[in-house]
């Protein structure tokens, strides 16, 4: 996976580059808009990370210019701004995503994977999801584990569906809050964890292989193997 990182803070750029490379990305970095433009047009990238506060131009104008130049890869926007303005929302609707600084690396990686998956043609609208012996019927809103119907509340079903769609990938608490409850909040209580415990109690019955794993300080993952 080729990734273009546009970030002017050298400190952040270097640790991002290292951790992204560790995560298996082939990273090219640019510290300003001009370099980013040149690199983006020359090289084929699968995904871009763009910081909004660039020294020579606004991150938005860079993204718009890149889109005009024919760059189709999804963009993950990094912003140190406090208020998320409408333009970010507009871009988000266009299939891109954003993260405010400071962020968790796991969150960044999870969102990158999410963007890449969203962009791949395989994500067609299926009516059934299957992860190992867990099966979700999206039309009848019914989940079964090893043939046994799970008694889930509608909200638990949505949560499990989200985990299944991201099976094998880490999802963070804020991603869950964002995608399942539609809120960008950071509760200082463990509200998401309690939902996961409850769901786990229903999905991972006694004697069964536990599917929902907790990654401490990061989030959750639904095992797919």
């Amino acid at each position, binding site marked *: 996976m080729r990734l273009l990182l546009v970030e002017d803070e050298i400190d*952040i750029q270097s*640790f991002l580059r290292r951790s992204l490379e560790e995560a298996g990305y082939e990273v090219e970095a640019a510290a300003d808009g001009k370099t980013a433009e040149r690199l983006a047009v020359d090289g084929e990238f699968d995904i871009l990370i763009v910081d909004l506060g660039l020294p020579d131009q606004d991150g938005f104008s860079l993204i718009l210019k890149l889109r005009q130049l024919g760059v189709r890869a999804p963009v993950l926007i990094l912003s140190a701004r*406090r208020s998320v303005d409408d333009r970010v929302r507009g871009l988000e609707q266009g299939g891109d995503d954003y993260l405010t600084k400071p962020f968790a690396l796991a969150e960044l990686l999870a969102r990158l994977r999410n963007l890449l998956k969203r962009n791949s043609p395989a994500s067609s609208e299926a009516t059934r999801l299957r992860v190992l012996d867990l099966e979700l019927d999206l039309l009848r809103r019914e989940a079964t584990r090893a043939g046994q119907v799970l008694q889930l509340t509608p909200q638990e079903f949505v949560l499990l569906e989200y985990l299944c769609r991201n099976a094998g990938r880490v999802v963070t608490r804020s991603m869950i809050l964002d995608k399942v409850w539609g809120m960008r909040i950071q*509760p200082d209580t463990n509200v998401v964890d309690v939902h996961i415990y409850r769901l786990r109690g229903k999905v991972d019955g006694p004697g069964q292989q536990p599917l929902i794993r907790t990654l401490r*300080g990061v989030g959750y993952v639904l095992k797919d193997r």
Partner: protein
Amino acid sequence: MFSKTAKPALRSAAWRISLWATLAFACGTLLVFIFLHRFVADDIQRRSDAWLVGEIEVLGDVAEQTPMNALHDRVVEEVAELASKEVPNRDASANASNDSVFFLQTGSNGSLTLWVGAGNGVANLKAIQASRILPDHPTHLRVQGFTIPFRVASARINDGSYIYLGLSERDELRVLRSLGLRFILLWFLLVLLGFGIVFFTTRRMLSHVREIAEAASRIGHSDLHARVPTTKHNDEVSHLALTLNHMLDRIESSMHQLHTITDSLAHDLRSPLTAIRGKLEMSLSAAMQVEQADPIVSSIEELDRLTDFLNKSLDVAEAKADALRLNRVALDLDELLRIMIDLYEPSMSERGLQPRLHSGGPLVIEADAALIHRMIANLFDNELKHLPAACTVNLRLRVEDAAALLILEDDGPGFDAEVLPHLFERRVKGKDSNGHGLGLAFVDAVARAHGGSVAAGNRDGGGARIELSFPLAST
């Protein structure tokens, strides 16, 4: 515009202004008319007096020069009759007999010697004798039996007798009355016209002021781009509008400065925080023992708390300065509360708490969704952290006085007495609280930024009560 201004016209200051102006105008014009009336009355009197004096002279001459014989009375009577026919301003007599003029001669002993006029002249003589009438000085005389007074001139004749010529003031009074009537009519029309002109001009003027006030009130807490309408005239009202706009310019620019400061503060703190967090996380990702990882994980958690504190502090600071930037959308509080309860219910029931929503259905406000989400999450977090087990949290949502009212009540211990008066101040928290003391300050900030309000206190029966009010969405 007119349909809008028509309703409050009675409450408008235009009424008061034009009433006072009209009163002053009416008094002024009334004085002018009274003066004019007096002037005309004096003039008419002078003319009739001049006529009286002239006639009495002629009559005196005739009386003197006519020999004292049987013919004397006859000649004088004829002359007096003739004189009475050339009375000025004479009305076509309402009465057949000539009651507008009398002529009277007394002998030297004061007895009536000659009388020309209506009646027998006894009453006239009595009235004349009762009042002192100086020769050549016409005098006002009231005669019994006549409703209208006379103007009487006298002359002394050589033989010691007096002659008197009286002219009824009837015609004079009639002229003056009709003049007065016209004056009153004219005065009334003028006052009415004046009132109309003053009322419409002040109302037009004040409608500009009202437009300015309406526009100014529309310029909300955070929308400072709008300006009040200005007019082309160079008067006080347009000065008012210009001054308001200048003021808004200054407020907007200081607001902009505040935003720049908070933004750069946020940016300057966030970049190093990002770098620190990233480095900590990278050192964590390497395979390490739990004992080694623990301090790093807790450092990361501290950093996250610091970030949250930074965000909330800046939000509270901006909101205190009425500078919180809002991205308003239609937001259904009922739906939001249901989602929030759905989100928090497992955590709450785990701690033995029970959230209950009492809502009458959808209730839409125009608000910044992200801020409202954070605000309500804040309230729920507070309940979750501070309530002992087996408490109930009641959430009531309803419309009251054209505002969306959200009341959160619990049956827990309530707020500490010593923090109660300072609940919405920054850094205020209860003894056992481990938060950073921004929770309710943030709630207050968000409510105020939306033009709403928040009140908090303890319920009579024990437990905390927080009441939030938001303006309803304009449909």
